[in-house]
């Protein structure tokens, strides 16, 4: 029998093979009564509704906590919306009215939700997602009212592939990546909650498969290929073997080196809580970019020194043998924070952002952050701190002065501290041209390729009309990288790269050839990059880089890479 390939949208560059478990939450498995409720029992029917709602609130609360912990505060916030839908006065009124007329509570609930669901389904874009939220709330209430079974998604057998029409945030939050080999849904796209979750935890996932998914039966062995965006039923043995291979050599724990022994550190970029977990499960050697913005976003006031200290120590504890590179607050440009008075600028990307703000408008925030960082420097682990968007030596000197001042005051207060390794991000042409001077003052440099490409090519990251220009494979960007690497090494500093480019497995050889010591990326590509490093010969990587550095066009670079 030949295999059947069903196309969808890939959410993660991952392939999984396993046995199908169908999840149909709307079918509770319990009989629902449609008999009218006698008048004498209507009061207790109303009480049953209230009790179910109370229980639903409790469920939402615990699922919210779980999601915040595993995926992040941002994803968890959707439960706040569910909570408000659950308590909506309009729903309450309609349910109460129907029950008063003799409807059983469960059908009263179905009826009350019907109109709003239809209404939201008709709206465009993100508003249509509210229909999903309402269905989720409705099904939860109905299940609690009819005492239906709930498939415990947290307890799926190991090696399961979950199939469902859709997975709600509450569903995905329960999935255990150790047990679930993948999932596929008939609805959803790359930006749905399920996709975000899948990427955070590196679970193979294909979404938006359509109704063809229904043709796959419970217990069947299937392959979910999140890279190609396909679900394969009745897979051939070759397909299964290659999917298994993809799964088997996925995580490489421990340091990797090239064939001839040049060690390359492969680290993770992290921001949200789930990123830290993903970094650990994907075998990151450490953290190459800890984005502290996430500590500052979505709140009424900035995090206190103690809170920041705890977060930094938490990251250090997660990687007892690896380095944790924390980037000081990088705000301004496109990132907004409510309690900071960010000016409206005509060219925010060329405005007061990154270190510029830390040395002016956000001086106090910067000082608090440095205090927390220097104190964390005394904790177990290997902490490093880097400054974003430096474009002059003066800025770096000023930042280093602040570090010294903070150290002095911690000393005077008798608090335990240690100055961590210090570094500069290379993101502006200014920093590239002054890389020697910068490197001589610090322990390391870290190239932020997204911003570097943006500024070298003068092409905004968000502007699709110039998307072609915003590509690190343009020779001027490669030359800027090479120049920074040489400057670092001549000054006994190490040099890393964080940004999309570092995580592209197709570019690993080129980057090793350019001389980078560390590559930092989203957790999901770490295994592929580590595997690539182990197959590279330093000399031929160096040749490849040399040839790339003599090209005149991006096409030349691309041709060079595909000739390999």
């Amino acid at each position, binding site marked *: 029998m030949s295999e059947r390939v069903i196309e969808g949208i890939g959410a993660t560059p991952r392939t999984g093979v396993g046995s199908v478990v169908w999840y149909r939450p709307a079918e509770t498995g319990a009989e629902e009564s449609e008999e009218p409720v006698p008048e004498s029992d209507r009061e207790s029917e109303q009480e049953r509704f209230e009790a179910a709602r109370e229980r639903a609130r409790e469920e939402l609360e615990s699922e919210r906590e779980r999601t915040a912990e595993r995926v992040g505060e941002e994803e968890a*916030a959707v439960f*706040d919306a569910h909570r408000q839908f659950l308590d*909506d006065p*309009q729903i309450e009124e309609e349910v109460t009215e129907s029950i008063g007329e003799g409807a059983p509570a469960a059908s009263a609930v179905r009826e009350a939700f019907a109109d*709003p669901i239809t209404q939201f389904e008709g709206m465009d874009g993100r*508003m249509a997602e*509210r229909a999903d*939220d309402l269905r989720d709330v409705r099904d939860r209430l109905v299940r609690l009212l009819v005492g239906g079974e709930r498939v415990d998604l947290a307890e799926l057998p190991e090696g399961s592939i979950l199939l469902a029409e859709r997975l709600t945030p509450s569903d995905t939050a329960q999935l255990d990546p150790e047990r679930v080999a993948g999932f596929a849904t008939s609805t959803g796209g790359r930006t749905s909650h399920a996709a975000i979750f899948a990427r955070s935890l590196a679970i193979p996932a294909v979404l938006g498969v359509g109704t063809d998914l229904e043709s796959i039966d419970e217990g069947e062995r299937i392959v979910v290929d999140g890279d190609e965006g396909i679900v394969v039923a009745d897979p051939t043995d070759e397909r299964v073997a290659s999917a298994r291979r993809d799964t088997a050599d996925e995580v490489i724990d421990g340091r990797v080196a090239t064939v001839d022994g040049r060690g390359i550190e492969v680290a993770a970029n992290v921001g949200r809580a789930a990123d830290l977990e993903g970094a650990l499960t994907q075998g990151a050697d450490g953290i190459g970019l800890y984005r502290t913005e996430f500590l500052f*976003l979505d709140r009424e006031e900035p995090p206190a020194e103690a809170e920041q200290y705890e977060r930094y120590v938490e990251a250090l504890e997660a990687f007892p043998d690896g380095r944790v590179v924390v980037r000081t607050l990088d705000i301004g440009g496109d990132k*907004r924070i409510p309690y900071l008075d960010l000016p409206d600028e005509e060219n925010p990307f060329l405005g007061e952002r990154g270190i510029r703000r830390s040395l002016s408008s956000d001086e106090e925030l910067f000082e608090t952050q440095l205090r927390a960082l220097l104190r964390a420097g005394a904790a177990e682990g290997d902490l490093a701190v880097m400054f974003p968007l430096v474009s002059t030596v003066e800025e770096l000197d000023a930042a280093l002065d602040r570090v010294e001042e903070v150290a002095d005051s911690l000393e005077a207060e008798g608090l335990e501290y240690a100055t961590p390794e210090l570094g500069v991000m290379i993101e502006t042409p200014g920093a590239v041209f002054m890389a020697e001077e910068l490197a001589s003052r610090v322990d390391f440099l870290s190239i932020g390729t997204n911003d570097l490409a943006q500024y070298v090519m003068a092409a905004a990251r968000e502007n699709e009309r110039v998307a072609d220009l915003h590509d690190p494979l343009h020779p001027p960007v490669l030359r800027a990288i090479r120049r920074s690497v040489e400057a670092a090494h001549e000054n006994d500093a190490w040099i890393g790269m964080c940004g999309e480019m570092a995580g592209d497995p197709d570019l690993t050889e080129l980057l090793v050839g350019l001389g980078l010591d560390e590559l930092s990326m989203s957790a999901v590509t770490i295994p592929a990059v580590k595997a690539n490093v182990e197959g590279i010969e330093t000399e031929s990587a160096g040749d490849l880089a040399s040839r790339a550095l003599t090209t005149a066009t991006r096409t030349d670079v691309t041709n060079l890479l595909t000739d390999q």
Partner: protein
Amino acid sequence: MSETHERTVEIVPEAGLHARPAAKFVETANEHDATVRIGEAGADDDNLIDAGSMIAVTSLGVKQGERLRIVAEGEDSEEALDALERVLSTPEGES
């Protein structure tokens, strides 16, 4: 002694009054001892809807940059308006 206050506020969150900002908005409206109703800027009183209903608030489909008329009636009406204005002028975190 029921006081009525109102103001018109511009929506700052990038996604408009969608899931999270809407939930926060409804929660805030319900927290205060005031009856709060909302509508598009310039909407007359008959076209205002209950700010304490998530369904009503999200179905307005208000987008970033649009303006909302908020009318609060009750003892805490001023406080309610202040708090709601804060919610509407707080941008969402990046995703």
